[in-house]
């Protein structure tokens, strides 16, 4: 556990709901999600496609499209969050696909220097020096050779490092990373994750990692929040969650994980599919697929509460609430 545990949260999310207007009616992507991130902490949002993890990150950045309705409270350092003021400065974000997130007709120097000129009002020479420092910080060796390069001349890993350099330009305190390595090769992936972990350590940067990949999560995250159907179903320190998942969904998900290092019997697939955002089941959203479901699960929406024997672990399932953790 990090020494910052007892400090005031950097970002607090309370009862966040994101709803999209669709042809099939309102689709609730995020459904009353609450979460807090401490300074310097790496927290991972884990879940499968459509569970609302990216919508949560975009809501924090105020980058959702106009047809999205957002409600809930976001607090930054104890005060109401103004994403437009914090964006670039306190908050920065990197995306899954650096090839599309970068501007194809601007050189690396121009792109990385832009936030320095806009937010920090650096002159040309000072900006150049700072660009070199940021590229180096993002783990790009010999950065001066890259200044004139255009995105298409870079490898996928280099592009993501340029994105990271841009994100660091205004010394953010929280970096949102949405599937930052999903588009990359396995060998490149590990290097980018090591860089993110180093930045967290050296700069005291808090990271909110959005990922479907538990292997990626394990490399970085201090804590993990598992999302199902727009709600957090379990929140726990990373290693504890992987070793001893408690919520029935987390257990089933981990059982699906193919492990190259053991001859474990083939995983038991979770029956059925996640609910569509336009048609959430009543009660606990996981109940139609849950092996433990009881009649009460159809009626009661379980709250995310500390476990009886492990108050640092939260779980939204009364059936496992009292289990050893």
């Amino acid at each position, binding site marked *: 556990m990090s020494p910052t545990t007892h400090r005031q949260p950097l970002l607090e999310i309370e009862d966040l709901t994101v709803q999209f207007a669709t042809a099939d009616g309102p689709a609730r992507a995020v459904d009353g999600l609450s979460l807090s991130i401490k300074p310097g902490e790496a927290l991972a949002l884990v879940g*499968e*496609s459509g569970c609302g993890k990216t919508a949560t990150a975009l809501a924090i950045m105020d980058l959702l499209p106009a047809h999205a309705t957002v409600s809930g409270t976001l607090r930054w350092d104890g005060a109401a969050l103004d994403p437009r003021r914090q964006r670039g400065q306190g908050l920065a974000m990197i995306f899954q696909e650096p090839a599309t997130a970068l501007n194809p007709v601007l050189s690396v120097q121009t792109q990385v220097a832009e936030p320095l000129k806009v937010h920090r009002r650096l002159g040309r020479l000072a900006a150049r020096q700072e660009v070199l420092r940021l590229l180096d910080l993002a783990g790009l060796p010999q950065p001066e050779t890259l200044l004139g390069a255009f995105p298409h001349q870079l490898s996928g890993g280099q592009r993501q490092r340029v994105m990271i350099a841009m994100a660091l330009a205004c010394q953010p305190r929280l970096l949102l990373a949405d599937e930052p390595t999903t588009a990359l*090769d*396995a*060998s490149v*992936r*590990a290097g980018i*994750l090591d860089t993110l972990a180093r930045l967290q350590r050296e700069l005291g940067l808090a990271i909110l990692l959005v990922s*479907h*990949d*538990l*292997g*990626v*999560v*394990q*490399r970085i995250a201090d804590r993990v929040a598992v999302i199902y159907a727009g709600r957090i179903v379990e929140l726990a320190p990373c290693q504890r969650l*992987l*070793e*001893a998942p408690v919520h029935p969904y987390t257990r*089933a*998900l*981990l*059982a*699906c*994980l*193919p*492990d*190259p*290092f053991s*001859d474990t019997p*083939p*995983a*038991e*697939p*979770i029956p059925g*599919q996640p609910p569509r955002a336009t048609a959430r089941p009543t009660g606990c959203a996981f109940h139609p697929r849950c092996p433990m479901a009881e009649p009460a699960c159809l009626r009661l929406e379980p709250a995310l509460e500390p476990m009886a024997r492990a108050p640092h672990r939260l779980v939204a399932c009364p059936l496992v609430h009292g289990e050893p953790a």
Partner: protein
Amino acid sequence: MTAALLLEVRGLYKRFPAQRGLLGGGRPAVDAVVDVDLTIPAGSTLALVGESGSGKSTAGLCVLRLVEPDAGSIKFEGRDLAAMGQAALRPLRPGFQAVFQDPWASLNPRLTVRDLVGEALEVHGLAQGSAVDDRVAAALKDVGLPGDAMTRRPSAFSGGERQRIAIARALALEPRLLVCDEPTSALDLSVQAQVLALLRQLQQERGLAYLFISHDLGVVRQLAQQVAVMDAGRIVELGETRSLFEAPCHATTRRLLKSTVAPRKRTRTV
């Protein structure tokens, strides 16, 4: 292995020639596949693993003759596919089919599932008229899709369902070999598990053989009896899955295993 060899690849070689770009760029010639030897017994799975650019997908496409190899033989059920013209190859094609990585790209969005799955049956003259409907329905049932899926288009399905449609399309022709190129890479973990379970079940029920191309060593460990590791177009290590994972010999294999980001689930001893 005493079982009959379904596929026997010898000395497979593919070079992509140098290209000059419009704006003076371009790329040098690439030896994508070099001296690749592979054998797959009937009903068994060989995994081809390696990083992007190692040549594993090109090798798979050469076996399917969707990319023309420059040299080597590809014996399928005793006949050399590499030595045949496309016309002579066509009647053999139902025997070896493919499932690709991205079910958003591999299914024509304008066709109904009935046409997507049934088209190949008609092209190969394996069924006509209502017999096509029957065989499409049977193939959909085999992959766990409801019968009313026939009239819908790919957009009505989730990623896992689409990949089932792609598998049904291949199965409808009753192949003996499926070349699967990263068939679960685009899918969620729980959906991946469902598709892998389906592939295992189909192998048991029908004695299907798989050439399974993947970068995911966890998936490979679950599915393959044998693994071939590729690097820069060559097979650098080949062996029985368990021994290759537990005692990797080649540096590339070790690097792949090391860079595998797999959670260590330590089993709890209470």
